[in-house]
C-alpha cells in the first residue's frame, strides 16, 4: 500500500510489485560489508528507489555514508515494513521496540542514515525517540550527549537561566544511558 501511494503514476503497480519482490539488490556499507535485500524492501528508501529507477544501481549499491552496523539495523527495519502480512499495528509495535533499545549514539547514526537514504517512517520514529530522551534532561546532559561545547559566557547563561527560571527546576539527574 505504502508503495502505491508513493508511486501514483505506476499504472501496472501489481505485476511490477511482484517483480520487485523477487529481485534482490546488494547494499554495500562504508566499511565494505555487503547486504542482500529484496527490491521491494530497498525502495522504501526514496534514495535507493531513485537509484534503481535511474538504473544506476548496477547490482551493488555503495552507501559510503553508512557503516555496516547501522546498515544492518536499517535493513531490519526495511524488511519488516516490506513484509506482506504485517499489519499497521504490528509495524507500529515493531517501530517502538526497534528504537527503544538504542543508545543515543546509535540513534544518531540511524537518524543520519535514515536522512541520507530518505526513509521517512524511520526518520520520524528516530526523531521522536531522540526528542523523548531529551525530555527533562539538564543542559549539561544534552551538551555531553551531543558533543557540544557551550559558547555562551557564564554571564549570558546566568541571564538566560534567570529569564526562564522555571525551565530548570527539578530536571532529571544526568545518570541515564
Amino acid at each position, binding site marked *: 500500500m505504502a508503495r502505491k501511494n508513493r508511486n501514483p503514476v505506476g499504472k501496472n503497480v501489481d505485476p511490477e510489485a511482484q517483480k520487485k519482490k523477487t529481485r534482490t539488490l546488494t547494499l554495500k556499507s562504508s566499511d565494505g560489508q555487503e547486504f542482500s535485500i529484496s527490491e521491494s524492501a530497498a525502495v522504501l528508501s526514496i534514495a535507493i528507489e531513485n537509484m534503481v529507477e535511474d538504473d544506476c544501481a548496477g547490482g551493488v549499491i555503495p552507501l559510503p555514508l553508512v557503516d555496516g552496523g547501522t546498515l544492518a539495523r536499517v535493513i531490519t527495519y526495511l524488511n519488516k515494513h516490506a513484509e506482506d502480512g504485517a499489519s499497521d499495528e504490528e509495524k507500529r509495535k515493531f517501530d517502538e521496540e526497534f528504537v527503544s533499545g538504542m543508545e543515543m549514539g546509535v540513534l*544518531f547514526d540511524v*537518524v*543520519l542514515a535514515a*536522512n541520507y537514504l530518505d526513509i521517512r517512517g524511520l*526518520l520520524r520514529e528516530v*526523531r*521522536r525517540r*531522540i*526528542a523523548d530522551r*531529551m*525530555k*527533562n*534532561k*539538564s*543542559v549539561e546532559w*544534552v*551538551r555531553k550527549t*551531543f*558533543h*557540544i*561545547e*557551550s*559558547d*555562551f559566557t557564564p554571564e549570558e*547563561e546566568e541571564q*538566560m*537561566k534567570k529569564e*526562564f527560571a*522555571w*525551565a*530548570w*527546576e*527539578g*530536571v532529571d539527574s544526568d545518570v541515564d544511558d
Partner: protein
Amino acid sequence: KMSSQQRLREELIDRDFESLTEVEAAKLVPTRVKRLGIPRVEEGQAQEDGKGYTIVSGNEEATVDCSSYSMKKNLWRRNSRRLLKFQELQKSNSMNAHLPDDVLEMCLVRLPLRSLMNARLVCKKWRNLMTTPRFMQMRREGSFRSPWLFLFGVVKDGYCSGDIHALDVSLNQWHKIDSEALKGRFMFSVASTEDHVYIVGGRSSLTYFGRVDRSSFKTHKGVLVFNPLTKSSRKAASMNHARSSHVLGVSNVSPDCLIIRNQQNRSDRHCYRSRVSGASDVYEDLHRLSVRRQSDTKPYESVRRKNETSYSKDGKKIIIIAVGGLGSWDEPLDSGEIYDPVSNKWTEIQRLPLDFGVACSGVVCNGTFYVYSESDNLLDMT
C-alpha cells in the same frame, strides 16, 4: 477551612485542550491547588459586604476567585536582531554540528516546552535554530505543543500578587510566573486563545495598592494580552463598558459550528456546575430543573451576523465574547460585546433578556456560548 471554595468562577475550558476532557480539566484545578500547596486562593473580604457576590452562602469565610485556563503554549516573537546573528553564526559555527541542522531541527521541534527552553541554553547555534520563524511555524503546524494550564488572579491575605501559576500538563509540574502587569488587579476575567491569554476588565483598588478593597476601586475597560512565555503583555482595544466579574467566552468561528445546542447539554452543564460549586446552598435544588430557558433568537441572529462578516481567509478565527459583569458603580450590567482580534474592535451585541438575572458563568461548547445566571437561567448564544 478546606471547604472554602464556594465560588470558582469562570471555568471556561478551552475547547482545544488536547488530552483532557473538559470535566477532567476542571477537576484538575481545585485538587492540584490543594495537594501541591499552591497558596490558597482567598478573598477574605468578600463576605463582609457581599457586594457583587450574590452567591454567598452564610457560613463561609472565603471565596475562590481564580480563573484557570488551558492553552497551548508556544512561541517567542520573532526577533530580527537574533535572526541576523543567526545568519552570521550559521557560516562560522558548523564545527560542533553532529547532526545536520534539518535533522536536529526536526528532533528539537518535538520537545515539550520546558525541554525546549532548556535546549536553547545548549549553545548559540541551537538557540538560533530554535528561534527562527520557520521553527515556530513547524512547531505550530506539527501540533507538537503540549497543553498548559494557567491559574490567574491569585489573592492571598487580601492582596493581589499578580503571580500566575502554570501547570505543564505533559510533565505535571507547576511553575510560577511573576507578572507585574496584573499586580493589584482583581475580579478580572480571563480567556485564552491559541497563543495568548486575554485579561479583560476587572478592578483595582484606589487606596492600598494591590489590596482587594471593595469600597474604593476603579473598574477597568482595558484589555491586556498576555504572552506567558515571554511574560510580556500588551494592550488591546478597550471594551465599550467597564466591567468586572463578567463572563467571557472564546469561540473558534467557522461556518460549520453555528448550531444551537439544547437539552442534553444543559443537563451536562448543570452537573458540572453543581460539582464545582461544592458546598454552596444555592445549588441544592439542582435537580428541580427550574426556569431554564432558551433566549429568543434575536441575540443569536445578531451574533451570527457579526461572526460571518469577520471570517479570515482560512475560514476560522477566534472571537471573544464578554457578557454581563459589574460596572463602575457596582451595578450589574446586562450588555454584552464581542471582540475581534483581527480588527482589534469590540462590538456591542444585544443585551441579555430583562429577567435573565446576573450572568455568573459561561462556557463555549460546540460553537455555542452558554451563559448561566445566578437566578438559574441558562442562555444559549450561537
